């Protein structure tokens, strides 16, 4: 007994050592759901991670005005404001295109020819082309690339053919008003943090008001950081309300039952100790810890509240440890066995949750056993009779289990019990945010959808793959598989074509200086031009050069690191994803990325595995309990959480919802809590009111802490909360309907 606090000291020392290691290494929290799946077989997974990170930071600013001039003025005002803030970084703008990209094109103009110009030059039509340009010089028109740089007009035509015309302002009606729109892609430098999201919102609100009053223009913003900010502000509001209500209620219940806050402190301290230990252990074991693991691992560790309250209910009565040690350890082992089943799923995310909750429970239990005798000494002076005057005997409970299971099976067979793995349940957004996102999609006439990520060890090897891709794109468009393909490689001809273009251009003009002289160019100009033509450059325009010129925007199209190079190929208006996905699996270095589909697949896989292994969990709990109790008692213990879980499932169907991963994770907690209640009840004497009181208080705290989350506006939180609300309520009702004196 006296050595027990040493256990806690040992735990504390272990935590401190782990924390020191973490301090040196840093904490890594993963937020990408697909990272919870088995590791990708992709040779260059870091590129996809980069693209995911870039997409999560991108915001589209939509600037709308009634006419082009107002839009221009508002655009200038917005650019000036963007230049002054460090919260947003413009990804691509006209300045960069003119100041950085255009010079790259000009320096490589001999290699950049449209197929039609190449044909004309090869056919000896250079003189006609020069004359046509000369005639154009007699009009009032000005050209992007000046005449003296591009006397044949080939570069102007090449740029026209490859550079998207997104700069043009599309017209679209917003809230009943027809406006012209300009799209400015920006990167939020700190949009994902709470403070960053708030600052961003303040900046956007200020600019919206200023642009409206000064220019009569409308500014809209959409992107992941905007959704994150919405979710944060809504979650904060809910935490304030739900958290405050549940905390006050829990404190009042503890004061009412125990006449002291010490049991509550022991409960909070034990759970906190368990979560900290689990966090440190898992960070060191997995390197990265997923946010979902942290949230649900901590929730599953919440079962430990039972230990503390059970301890408090029996405190001050002789050798308390002697009295509660067995049921508490049995309860711990059964919960550990239940959660440990997830370790065998082969799915990394579920394994993380399993390890987190197992370590957390052990840490919490150790804390209760070692600090409980020091913190809670006063005997419970008041134990009301809480059992209901109804004996719901074990055979009847099992009958109810079979009826509910049969009903669930029938509903599943008839397609009424459905599963929903839509990743959008992870986000809660205000109606206005959704309206702007929908508007942006319709304005750009596309969703930010799937893309191909093609990687190779170097750019030369990548060019070979891109050569193949060019042929494929033509075929895809011919077969109507995809409307449009956007990729930086389309701005640059393949190497062989570049060499061919240069040779054709050189041949057409190098031997015929008189063509330029006839157009009126000076001898000095013609000599310089001839010199440039005759000089063997041996320079090919590569993606790296263009990507650098494009700056931040280019980096999402072409990425480089020591291990290789990759390019992103955006597929717009995709009609048949499966055909392109199939091709991608057959080509080395190709990866078809469909974020929404991948997330949905991740959630579906996690849910399926979690559901199957919930069955294994029950089996493991059954086997473990069999070591301590006879089968009859074991079946009595297990049927309570099972019945509560089945009622949850039927309840979900009854309210017209579908079952998701987050319901299933809630069912694990229902298993843990339900088994605890049953074990404590089974190990108590017939007239022991304290155990039932501890069970009821524990259930009430769980309902208040988790069950109230059912009213959250974030769907996945509400799904977990609903499961807890129903599961805990049914579990505690079953415990209250257990008449021990009526047992055989």
């Amino acid at each position, binding site marked *: 007994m006296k050595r027990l606090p040493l256990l806690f000291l040992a735990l504390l020392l272990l935590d401190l050592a782990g924390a020191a290691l973490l301090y040196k290494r840093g904490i890594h929290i993963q937020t990408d759901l697909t990272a919870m799946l088995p590791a990708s077989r992709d040779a260059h997974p870091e590129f996809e991670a980069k693209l995911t990170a870039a997409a999560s930071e991108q915001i589209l600013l939509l600037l709308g005005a009634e006419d082009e*001039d107002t839009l*221009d*003025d508002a655009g*200038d005002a917005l650019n000036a404001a963007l230049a002054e803030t460090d919260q947003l970084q413009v990804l691509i703008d*006209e*300045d960069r295109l*003119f100041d950085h990209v255009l010079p790259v094109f000009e320096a490589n103009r001999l290699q950049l020819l449209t197929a039609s110009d190449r044909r004309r030059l090869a056919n000896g039509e250079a003189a006609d082309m020069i004359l046509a340009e*000369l*005639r*154009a*010089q*007699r*009009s*009032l*028109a*000005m*050209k*992007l690339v*000046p*005449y*003296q*740089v591009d006397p044949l007009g080939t570069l102007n035509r090449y740029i026209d053919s490859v550079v998207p*015309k997104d*700069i*043009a302002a599309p017209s679209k009606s917003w809230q009943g008003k027809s406006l012209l729109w300009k799209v400015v892609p920006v990167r939020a430098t700190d949009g994902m943090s709470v403070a960053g999201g708030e600052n961003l919102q303040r900046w956007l609100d200020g600019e919206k008001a200023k642009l409206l009053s000064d220019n009569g223009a409308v500014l809209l913003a959409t992107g992941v950081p905007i959704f994150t900010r919405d979710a944060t502000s809504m979650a904060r509001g809910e935490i304030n309300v739900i958290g405050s209500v549940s905390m006050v209620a829990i404190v009042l219940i503890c004061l009412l039952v125990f006449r002291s806050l010490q049991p509550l402190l022991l409960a909070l301290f034990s759970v906190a100790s368990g979560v900290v230990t689990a966090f440190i252990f898992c960070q060191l074991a997995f390197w990265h810890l997923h946010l979902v693991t942290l949230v649900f691992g901590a929730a599953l560790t919440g079962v430990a509240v039972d230990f503390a309250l059970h301890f408090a209910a029996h405190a001050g009565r002789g050798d308390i440890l002697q009295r509660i040690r067995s049921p508490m350890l049995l309860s711990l082992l059964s919960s550990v066995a239940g959660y440990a089943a997830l370790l065998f799923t082969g799915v990394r995310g579920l394994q993380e949750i399993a390890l987190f909750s197992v370590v957390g429970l052990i840490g919490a239990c150790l804390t209760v056993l070692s600090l409980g005798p020091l913190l809670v000494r006063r005997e419970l002076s008041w134990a009301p009779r809480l059992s209901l005057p109804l004996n719901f005997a074990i055979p009847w409970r099992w009958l109810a289990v079979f009826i509910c299971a049969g009903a669930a099976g029938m509903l599943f067979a008839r397609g009424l019990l459905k599963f929903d793995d839509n990743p959008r349940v992870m986000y809660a957004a205000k109606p206005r945010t959704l309206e702007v996102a929908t508007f942006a999609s319709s304005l750009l006439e596309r969703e930010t959808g799937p893309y191909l990520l093609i990687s190779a060890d170097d750019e030369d090897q990548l060019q070979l793959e891109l050569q193949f891709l060019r042929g494929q794109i033509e075929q895809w468009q011919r077969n109507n598989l995809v409307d449009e393909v956007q990729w930086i490689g389309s701005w640059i001809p393949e190497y062989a074509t570049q060499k061919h273009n240069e040779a054709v251009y050189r041949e057409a003009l190098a031997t015929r200086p008189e063509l330029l002289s006839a*157009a*009126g*160019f*000076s001898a*000095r*100009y013609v000599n310089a031009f001839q010199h440039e033509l005759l000089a063997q450059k041996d320079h090919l325009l590569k993606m790296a050069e263009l990507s650098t010129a494009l700056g931040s925007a280019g980096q999402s199209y072409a990425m480089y690191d020591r291990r290789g190079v990759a390019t992103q190929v955006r597929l717009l208006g995709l009609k048949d994803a499966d055909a392109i996905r199939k091709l991608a699996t057959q080509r080395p270095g190709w990866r078809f990325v469909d974020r929404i589909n991948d997330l949905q697949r991740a959630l579906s896989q996690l849910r399926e595995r979690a559901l199957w292994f919930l069955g294994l969990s029950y089996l493991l709990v059954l086997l473990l309990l069999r070591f301590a109790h006879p089968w009859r008692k074991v079946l009595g213990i297990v049927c309570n959480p099972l019945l509560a879980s089945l009622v949850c499932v039927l309840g979900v169907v009854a309210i017209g919802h579908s079952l998701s991963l987050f319901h299933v994770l809630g069912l694990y907690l229902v298993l843990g809590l339900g088994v605890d209640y049953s074990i404590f009840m089974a190990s108590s004497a017939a007239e022991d009111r304290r155990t039932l009181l501890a069970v009821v208080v524990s259930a009430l705290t769980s309902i208040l802490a988790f069950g109230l989350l059912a009213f959250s506006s974030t769907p996945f939180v509400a799904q977990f909360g609903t499961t807890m609300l129903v599961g805990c309520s049914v579990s505690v009702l079953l415990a209250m309907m257990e008449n021990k004196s009526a047992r055989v």
Partner: protein
Amino acid sequence: MKWLLLLISMSVSAQELPSVQGKFVQTRDTPGMDAPLKSDGKFLFAQATGLLWAIDDGSTAMFIPAEGKTRMWRGDQWQTPNSPAMKYTQQFIRAIAQQNQAELDKNFQQKKLTGEDGANVTRLSPRRSRIKRFISYIDVRRDTYLRSIRIQQQDGAALQLDFLDQQPLAALNADSCENVLNRSACQQVFSP
């Protein structure tokens, strides 16, 4: 004084401009060329309809309507160019021809200069960065009629437009158009 200038500019911009026809000489200085490119042609201007601009050899013409996009005649058909540089050219020539002070003030800082021959010249310097990319400044000479426009480009090229023999024009339509362009081209651009 500022309000007085504003009042004058408003009264000038509000007044009905006479419709005119005349000849022009277009001179383009291009770096690297021995001599400037010269073209002669005729123009027709009516405030409510627009400006028609045709090179004498019939190969090139341009119609800048009072409202809407500019069209260019390439010898066989009309085209609507869509480049940013073209957009600004049409916008400013239209504003200068129509004496649209509000439009000019929005895009340019205006400064009065005296030309070598003592004539009044207004120098228009772009306010917006995207116009500055193409145009360094525009000099406009005007007395009763518009006499010349010089567009100095950022790449060193310059376009000088001199307007000669200006006379009143009854209307800018398919009939008057045929004085400067062939019938087919005129009917395509002025047919209802």
